[in-house]
């Protein structure tokens, strides 16, 4: 019974699990692992959010705090016994305090294979400028 299973990246067959649409505070949460990188123009946050689709991802900025929230469909399975458990599927949430040099209005995000990359562009440093003096 040896064989290799071909991998498909299509959507799983429809199951009874629905992706919830409300940000219910009673739902369990966990903190996603992140990596931070910095370039000359931006700060990049790579967050591990497996199972979160783009539509279920909420990224918001308020008063200098960036909040990343992702909802996942329930992973429980009716009609199955769990033999082994190493993780509990739960919604993700993490907040970041933004440094002063980030342009909050220009923040963008992209998701691929369950990793969300948030780009925080840096504000261009103010150049020194000479002020003209008028007389009279």
């Amino acid at each position: 019974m040896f064989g290799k299973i071909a991998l498909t990246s299509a959507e799983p067959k429809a199951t009874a699990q629905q992706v919830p649409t409300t940000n219910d505070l009673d739902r369990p949460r966990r903190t996603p692992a992140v990596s931070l990188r910095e370039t000359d123009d931006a700060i990049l946050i790579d967050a591990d959010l497996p199972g979160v689709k783009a539509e279920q991802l909420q990224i918001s900025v308020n008063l200098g705090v960036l909040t990343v929230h992702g909802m996942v469909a329930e992973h429980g399975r009716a009609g199955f016994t769990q033999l082994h458990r190493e993780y509990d599927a739960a919604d993700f949430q993490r907040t970041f305090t933004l440094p002063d040099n980030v342009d909050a209005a220009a923040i963008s995000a992209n998701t691929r294979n369950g990793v969300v990359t948030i780009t925080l562009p840096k504000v261009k440093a103010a150049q020194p400028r000479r002020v003209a003096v008028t007389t009279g």
Partner: protein
Amino acid sequence: MFFSPVGFTSTRKPFRDLERLVEDLATSFHRAIPNATTRSGDVPLNVWSNDQSAVITAEVPGVEPASIAVTVLGDAVTISGKRTVVADGAASFTRTVHLPFRVDAERSEARCVDGVLNVALHRPETERPRTIAVKAC
């Protein structure tokens, strides 16, 4: 055979049960703590089963589905792949799950969507439980 206070004990392997207990502890010691997303290379797995099939799910963020290989030999399912870590290069992982029954690779499926791998393994008829009728004497 000799009699012990708890019943018959085989003389061939008197420490068999103790050895099996130690082996179980050793193999389960390395399993990841639940609910931890680690970047060290190991991926957390959940395993489910019923009379018709077994399902293995794994959280594999940042892993291209094309880099994942799932192979089956008897009751052992091996999942391996490579995660592209942006700064440090690639981190590869391999996990093997030993199921309590054999599965059929030909009729099994694996899908990977949004960083979650879902392997549905078919349980052949010969590996399904059967009830034995109890006859009154």
